[in-house]
């Protein structure tokens, strides 16, 4: 009985996510690229660990859609394609946009933050799916992996830059201070 109620609430949360996504309108994909790149450059300028977002962040536009990619799609360990942070953590991301009149809408994203070696959890990953999963309870459309692939904790829809705020000003700060 309670399981059914939990599923109803999860489905309602996915509907709310859908409404929030519909309301979230960004600039054209190239403008989003420019904004994220400038954001990452500022964070890099503030840190001791040097990164070159201009070389790391890539955009590809195909038939009305755009993907922005930084780092490998599948994290298999530290690489020169990652954005590296002072704590020893690393970041990769993928953001898919749908072009609409004079702007774009968020289709999906993944922000994969890997903590330095030896830390638990090993990683946090913010995911947005392009559509609701059949089982909204097990897999909310917008979720956070707390270092376990099969565990997905509901998370609210964020502007792509706001997720970076959480990563740099919360995760990285806490990681750096705990060292």
């Amino acid at each position, binding site marked *: 009985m309670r399981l059914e109620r939990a599923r109803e609430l999860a489905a309602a949360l996915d509907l709310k996510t859908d409404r929030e996504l519909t309301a979230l309108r960004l600039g054209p994909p*190239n403008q989003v690229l420019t904004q994220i790149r400038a954001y990452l450059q500022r964070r890099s300028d503030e840190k001791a660990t040097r990164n070159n977002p201009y070389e790391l962040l890539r955009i*590809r536009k195909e038939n009305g859609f*755009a993907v922005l990619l930084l780092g490998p*799609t599948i994290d298999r360990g530290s690489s020169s394609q990652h954005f590296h942070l002072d704590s020893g953590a690393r970041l990769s991301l*993928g953001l*898919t946009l749908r072009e609409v009149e004079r702007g774009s809408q968020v289709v*999906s994203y993944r922000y994969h933050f890997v903590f330095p070696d030896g830390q638990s959890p090993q990683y946090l990953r913010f995911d947005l*799916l392009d559509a609701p999963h059949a089982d909204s309870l097990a897999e909310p459309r917008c979720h956070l992996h707390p270092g376990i692939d099969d565990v997905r904790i509901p998370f609210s829809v964020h502007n792509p830059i706001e997720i970076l705020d959480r990563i740099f000003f919360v995760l990285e700060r806490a990681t750096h201070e705990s060292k």
Partner: protein
Amino acid sequence: MSEFSTEPFFEIARRLEIRGETGWVAVLTPATDSSASLDQLQTELQSVLQKPARVIQLETSTFEELREALHQPDGDAVILSGGTGLTLEKWRSLDIMRSALERKGPVILWLSPGDVAHLIEHAPNIRSFIGGSIFLAGPDRGIMTETERQERLKELSQHFGFSGAEAVRKAQARELPHEPEFVEWLVLLGRGDLL
């Protein structure tokens, strides 16, 4: 114009950022898609400098209009666009009013190759503001190349153990998970229509 270095807008904006508040540069308009490039330059300036960037048309602005526009406000970034080209008379009058053009925020002259030649030959005062900072608008290196796209597709295929064609078939049969990696895969294959 080959004596000028080619720089993407991001690098031009970074140079202005590093110089601090004040700075003058000139950028040659590309031969094609000049309007879209101007929009991109404006966006890049706003993102990197974290301040508004305005475009002012030199050709249609009177002396008084230009002076007022440059100083109200005077701390944002201003792109002075030469449009399709300015007359020699216009260049000479702009040069005479150089001191009235001085402002706190950066100024970017967006000029055709012909106007850059006029600037160099007929506007020595403005040229002294700019010095050697004359750039050709270069391509944005953030755009993924075809080789990079193929590498991404190969990486996805190897990791998930099936081909791009199979990914498309699964998407058509609604068997492809909604995870972001699969979304990216379809878009990189040019099949965003299946989302």
